């Protein structure tokens, strides 16, 4: 192992330790801080509002359907991209 890679590993480990400490200290807020403001409304009124018993679906497709549109777009982009990248014409030149 060369000196360069040793230094690299030490740096990475240092970064991770710092991050770990920061996260475990910073996120030590306990459960009482999790105030479910919006979710309490969803739980109380969700079925009446949307008619869906499954609250996850109710949020996914009714309250936050715009997010779902975004998600569908991401999947669409990925399919488009995979076909764009792996289409035959583009890759033929690399064979030769």
């Amino acid at each position: 192992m060369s000196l360069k890679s040793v230094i690299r590993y030490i740096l990475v480990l240092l970064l991770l330790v710092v991050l770990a400490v920061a996260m475990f200290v910073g996120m030590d807020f306990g459960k009482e801080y999790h105030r479910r403001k919006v979710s309490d409304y969803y739980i109380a009124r969700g079925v009446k509002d949307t008619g869906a018993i499954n609250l996850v679906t109710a949020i996914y497709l009714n309250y936050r359907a715009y997010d779902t549109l975004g998600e569908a777009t991401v999947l669409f982009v990925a399919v488009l991209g995979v076909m764009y990248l792996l289409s035959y014409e583009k890759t033929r030149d690399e064979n030769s």
Partner: protein
Amino acid sequence: MSDKIALTLFLIGLYGLIAKKNLIKKVMGLNILTSGIVLFFISLGYEKGLTAPIMEKGITDVVDPLPQALMLTTIVIGVCITALALSLIVRIYRRYSSLDVKILTGEGDE
């Protein structure tokens, strides 16, 4: 407790993404990182003794449904990024016949 595990998973993924030299392993690191985040979100809503958010008759104490709904989106995004990264790697492997991270910084270009 579960959010601590999720964070550990996140850090493991971060380590994989930063330190591994194989491109496929980097993608694996990215996946672990995403799973860590998903687990973190899910653990936010969870408390002991609560049931799934299916509001059938007589059920009132349920876990937080919002993070669960959001995580569906994150999972799809994770899948999409993985698919793209893999297809890029497949083509890079065809071009350079190597999966070493040195490719990314331009060594071996003509």
